[in-house]
């Protein structure tokens, strides 16, 4: 199968991978680049666990081919850390609010919320619930994830 060289910036670092055209972005990130924080829950674009930011916009990496994002800037959960290497505000908020249990869906929430708070840094509770409305979580019942969104907004404001 023909290999294609793909070059993108992942979490601020220029990376290249040689992949067949059918390689999903999720698989390229996980298996070619070793960034296993991006998880696959359904592989048909419903659960949102694999959400990464492509040029700042949340997208399902299970529905994208790696070759289709050649040249893009990609942020995964690993890239949602604070500049000093500590937990980023969304990550810290999930810890503070018990916003996760098994943690499998969490990376998709972290990336989604990170992008959302850039657009709307001070959401209401209702808006926070709406913001996570496209991601599935089987453990938490979402209540503490809604709290985490609000807490992340607070933490961002403080910093």
């Amino acid at each position, binding site marked *: *199968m023909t290999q294609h060289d793909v070059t993108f910036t992942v979490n601020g670092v220029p990376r290249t991978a040689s992949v*067949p055209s*059918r*390689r999903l972005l999720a698989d390229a990130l*996980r*298996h070619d680049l*070793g*960034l*296993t*924080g*991006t*998880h*696959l*829950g*359904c*592989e*048909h674009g*419903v*659960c949102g*666990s694999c959400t990464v930011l492509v040029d700042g916009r949340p997208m399902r990496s299970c529905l994208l081919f790696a070759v289709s994002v050649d040249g893009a800037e990609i942020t*995964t*959960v*690993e890239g*949602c*850390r604070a500049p000093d290497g500590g*937990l980023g505000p969304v*990550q*810290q908020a*999930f*810890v*503070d609010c*018990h916003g*996760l*249990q*098994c*943690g*499998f*869906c*969490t*990376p998709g929430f*972290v990336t989604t919320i990170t992008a959302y708070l850039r657009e709307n840094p001070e959401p209401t509770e209702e808006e926070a*619930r*709406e913001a*996570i*409305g*496209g*991601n*599935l*979580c*089987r*453990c*938490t*019942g*979402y*209540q*503490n*994830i*809604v709290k985490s969104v609000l807490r992340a907004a607070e933490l961002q404001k403080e910093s």
Partner: protein
Amino acid sequence: MVTRAFGVPMTRREDPRLVSGNGRYLDDLGEGALAVAFVRSPHAHARILDVDVTEALEVEGLVAIYTYEDLADDPNPRVSEPLPLLIPHPALHAPRVNTPLADGIARHVGEAVVMVVATDRYVAEDACERIVVEYEVLPAVVGIPAAVEASHRVHADVDDNVSAHLVQEVGDAPAAIAAAPHTLSLDLDIERSASMPMEGKGVYARWDAADRSLTVYTSTQASTSVRFALAAKLDLPVDRVEVIAPDVGGGFGVKIVHPWPEEVLIPWAAIKLGREVKWVEDRREHFISSTHERGQLQKVTVGFDDEGHVLGLDVEFWHDNGAYTPYGIIVPIVTSTQLLGPYKPGAYRVEFRSMYTNTVTVTPYRGAGRPQGVFAMERTMDAIADTLGLDRALVRERNFIQPEDMPYDHHLTFQDGRPLIYDSGDYPTSLEKIKALVGWDEFEAIREAARAEGRRVGIGLACYVEGTGPGPYEGAFVRVETTGKVVVATGLTTQGQGHETVFAQIAAEELGVPVDDVSVTTGDTRRFKYAVGTFASRAAVMSGNAVALTARKVRAKALRIAGEALEADPKDLEIVDGVVRVKGVPGDGIPLRTVAVLSNPLRYAFDEEAKRATQFAGTSDMSKPPIDEDDEPGLEATDYYSPIRSTFASGMHAAVVETDPETAEIKILRYCVVHDCGTLINPRIVEGQIHGGVAQGVGGALYERIVYDENGQPLNASYMDFLIPYASEVPTVETDHLETPSPLNPLGVKGAGEAGVIPSAALFASAISDAEGFFVNRMPISPSELWALREQHAVASEGSK
């Protein structure tokens, strides 16, 4: 000041790595391993006539293709035998368990027929597509009515499709019902659902040919038991097999089943090929080849007096166990016993038949038969109240077991094979709390106000008792390192419940060390060999108490050694923040790290601290050997907790719903929970468990169902069509707690894992019935089904005019 750890709602220590993408789930391991994909039966029931692999052989990157014949040709006959019947029971007279690959006949869509190993998953799936399997399609048995009718058979040698038939009786229920002033009969129906963890199953195996040892990582709820099963299946000495549950992305019951076909096949292939091999289940595979639950038809007959006291209860139900019975009949046993909830049933008779169908096998999903049982009992309570024109809460209250009746013996046998005896609980107080929380007595005013606005609202109530923490046992290992850090290991596994945190809290509290000094390992047979598994809300009860008991042993040893060093009576010593000292005398203590050094008499010093324990250090008592006869080196211990029987948690949920008069849309306005799981180790985590359970309950009541057509084809085997609730569907849960400690265990704890999901189907049926004014006897319910029910009832009431 003593820092408390137990009972504190502290944040979880597992979270920093999980929120930053540093978790290690199954598919994060074994990069470069060979990948496996399966050809699975597209038919619900079919004879396999031929497997033609010719086309597949040309696929570049293909490594191996295996069918059942390859298993049968293995010199070890156990590989091709049926997988274990995990929980045999005398009433399970016709158990049938599948072989790892189908042996001539496939009995549900999704049963594995051919295994393909290749360089990566894409290639393995390419090869699968080119394999041609010729089938002779056989008639499929789908649904309980068809199974009971038995025009066709799932297993050729089981004529009536009945795998098990069990009756339990206390008193003479038919006679009590016949003599009662009032009687009622209800036909009830609960559909199939499934655990659906966000991470499916997965197995990764490494065979070390030189060492003749096997290391298997699997996304399981029972790693120690997988180890024993694999050693037996693959004919290896147990000590050459290690099984590790890495971070597991949710279980909810489905991952307690073991060994899965893939758990045998992946290690088998790894040994055969001398290569690392990995299989990761995709979502469609999870729908069609893991397991499901719920699925019962029930017939309840009840006799009661004018005040609503139940005098006799007779329940007959049919349980759909799917194609095989690897997990025995635990689910219907739980239904038949937990149905009784917080009530005294008078005379009780329960009879069930467990039925084979050509559908995915049924094994426990969070709640494990309890939601069905609670549905039967709570619908009955509502029906009694309706018949007598009494308040639904009052009828329940009149039938409650009272706190002074505890321990209360139902004279039945529970799912652990032990007597069904409730250890403690205070149901009247729970009812008071839930009524206050939801505003039960004030609801009529709300209903009237809504009615005036043209809105339709209803309130529901459902109560349950949950047997948690069944044995046989769990164990723990605790060691204080010479750094003063404490390591804890227990064999049961974790799927997101926060065990690393709560077990650390328990160990820290018992040992008197800062909680941050404690690290916990679960589900790794290299660290702890004997365990049962994580199911039935048992981890906190079983491993929690095992950790406590073990930590107490370590504490006693630390006090003894420190007593010798400090020339003090151990009884006068305490441990505060990791320092052993005379009670109430800060300063002159000896740190636990030093006690750990002294606990291990040394010839060779490995660091500065260790010098204190060497033979010329002058710390040894010359009148005794360095290690006493009944002593062991190291500040460590192993101990086990094995309860006499299960402990019984309980709770009550209330909900307010609004049903749209036009569209029949069902909206949840309030959801309230009163929960009693005994002493709380970490209230934050318990609360989280309740939230998650409620979300699954909402899903099970209003959205989720597994749909098969009459040919046994699953119609909604994807997240597009199987409707797991998003944030927009799940209400904010209002909670209140009650703590009636269990007298059965040292910590007084009861399980909390499953509670949230148990009463939901009953609760929403109650609330929707209340809003609509007619009785809902089938769950889940969709707006279109509610709309159809309205039409039926409108026609019926027209007819009666």
